[in-house]
C-alpha cells in the first residue's frame, strides 16, 4: 500500500492531466489524497491480516477520495476484503477471487460495462487474466504480473473508446483519443501490487 501510495504520488500530475482532458482534472489529486491518508492510517495502526488491510483501505478511500473514484475503489477494496475473509496469507486462488469480487463491486456501484471507457476496461481483463493464471496453477507474483499486463492493455484500449459513464461521457465522440484516467490508475495499482509481490519494489 505504501508502494501504491508512492506510485500514485509520482503519477499524480499525469492522472490529473488525463482527467483534465476528458473530466475535471482531479483524479490524480483524489487518488493521491486517499492513498496518502491510507499510509498514515497504516502507520498508526496496521491490521495484521490482508483482509484487515483491504478493509482499512476501503474505509479510508471512501472517506478521503471523493469523486466517482472514491466510492468505486472503496467498494472494490471492501468486496475484496470480504472475499479474502480472515485468511492469514493470500494464495493465487484467493487473489483471483478478491479481484473478481472487486470487479463485481465496481460494476454493482457504477453500472459500467466493458467498453464504456472506465476503470472496468482495465479491471475486467485483469480479473480474467488472474483467473486464467490461477487456473494454470501459477503463483501470486506471476498471477499479478499477468493481471497487471492485461490491465495495462485494457487501459490503453480506452484511448479509442467513446465514454459512456462518468464525467467523460458528456464529451461523447470528443472523448475519443484520450486515455481514461480511472483505467490508468487501476493499471498503475495492479502493476505496483505485481512489483511488490515479485520483490521488484
Amino acid at each position, binding site marked *: 500500500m505504501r508502494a501504491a501510495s508512492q506510485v500514485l504520488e509520482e503519477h499524480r500530475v499525469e492522472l490529473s492531466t488525463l482527467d483534465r482532458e476528458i473530466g475535471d*482534472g482531479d483524479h490524480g489529486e483524489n487518488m493521491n489524497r486517499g492513498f496518502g491518508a491510507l499510509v498514515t492510517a497504516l502507520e498508526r495502526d496496521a491490521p495484521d491480516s490482508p483482509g484487515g488491510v483491504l478493509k482499512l483501505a476501503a474505509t479510508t478511500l471512501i472517506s478521503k477520495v471523493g*469523486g466517482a473514484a472514491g466510492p468505486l475503489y472503496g467498494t472494490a477494496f471492501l468486496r475484496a476484503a470480504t472475499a479474502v475473509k480472515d485468511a492469514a496469507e493470500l494464495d493465487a486462488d484467493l487473489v483471483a477471487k478478491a479481484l473478481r469480487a472487486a470487479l463485481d463491486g465496481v460494476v454493482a456501484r*457504477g453500472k459500467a460495462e466493458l467498453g464504456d471507457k472506465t476503470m472496468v476496461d482495465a479491471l475486467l481483463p485483469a480479473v480474467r487474466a488472474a483467473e486464467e493464471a490461477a487456473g494454470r496453477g501459477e503463483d501470486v507474483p506471476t498471477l499479478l504480473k499477468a493481471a497487471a499486463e492485461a490491465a495495462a492493455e485494457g487501459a490503453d484500449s480506452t484511448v479509442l473508446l467513446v465514454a459512456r459513464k462518468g464525467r467523460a461521457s458528456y464529451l*461523447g465522440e470528443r472523448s475519443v483519443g484520450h486515455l481514461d484516467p480511472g483505467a490508468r490508475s487501476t493499471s498503475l495499482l495492479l502493476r505496483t501490487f505485481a512489483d511488490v509481490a515479485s520483490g521488484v519494489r
Partner: protein
Amino acid sequence: MKKIINDPSTVVEESLRGMASAHPDLIRVQLDPAVVVRADAPVSRKVAIISGGGAGHEPMHGGFVGKGMLDAACPGHVFTSPTPDQVQAALAMTDGGVGALLIVKNYTGDVLNFETAAELAEADGVEVRTVVIDDDVAVTDSLYTAGRRGVGGTLLLEKIVGAAAERGVDLDGCEALARKVVAQVRSMGLALASGIVPHAGVPSFTLADDEIELGIGIHGEPGRRRVPLGTADEMVKSLLDPILEDLPFAEGDRVLLFTNSMGGTPLIELYLAHGIAERLLAERGVVVERRLVGPFVTSLEMQGMSLTLLKLDDELVDLWDAPVHTAALRWGV
C-alpha cells in the same frame, strides 16, 4: 497561477473558516469531516434538507444554508464530490426526527457518495430520501451517458424545497415537491474563459480569442460544441432556444428566469444578458414572473453565464417568495 490562497491543499478548509467568521449568526462550520449547518440545527420536527458537492461553485451550497433553505451543506474538495462521512455527519447534526432529503446534482461521483451515505444512514434508522437534479439541457440524456448534469436549477430546487420544509411539509411532501421542481426546470451555460483549479494551477481548458464553449458544465467539463464568439444577442439566444425546446416552454407559461454568472463575468454584462433573455421570452409570450440575477452557481473565476428557466405555478411562486435567510439569498427577514 495567481490566486489569493496560501496552499492549494488547504483552500477549502481555510475558506470555510472565513465563511464561519463572516456569518456567525447564520451557520456553524465543522471542518473534519467538513459540514456547514445552520446555526439553529437540528430543528426539531422539521425535515432536514441537505445538499453538497465539490467546492468552487460558491456561494453554492454553503451560501444557501440557513432559515428557509438548506439545513446543511457538505463541501468536497474543489470540483470533487464530498465523501459519505461528510453526509453522515450532516445527517446527524440536522436530524429533527422526521427524516432528511438529500439534494444531489447528477454527477457520478456525487450520486455514488450520497448513495453510500444514504445506505449507511438508513442502516442507522434515519429515514433518508434522495432527489437527483439534472437540469442541464446541454447534455444528451441517454443510456450512453451519465445523464444530464445538475447545474443552475439546483439553487431553485433548494430554495423551494427549503421553504416547504420550513413550513412543516413532511418528507413525502418535500420529496414530491422536489421531483416536481426537477421536472420543470432546465438550464444551459456557456463559457468565454476557463477558471483555474488551485491544485491544478493551469486553466481547465483553453479557448481561442474568438471562440466560446456552448453547453459548458460547472467544472469546466467541455460542452456541446465550440462556436465562434457572437454578440450578446446571439449568445443569449443560443442558451435560451435549447431550454425552451426541451421542456418545452410554451406561450403563456409563467416562469422564473435565473441569469447566472459563472464567476468571472461581471454584473454589467450579466444584466445586459438578462435584459436580452427577458426580451426574447416576451417575444415568445412566456411570462417572466420572478427573476434572479447574479453569480450564484459558479465555476471559480470562469467567465461565462447560464440561464435557468423554471415553470411556475401558484405553489412554486409562493414558496419562492417565502422568507429565506442565508449568506447568499435573503429576503422577507
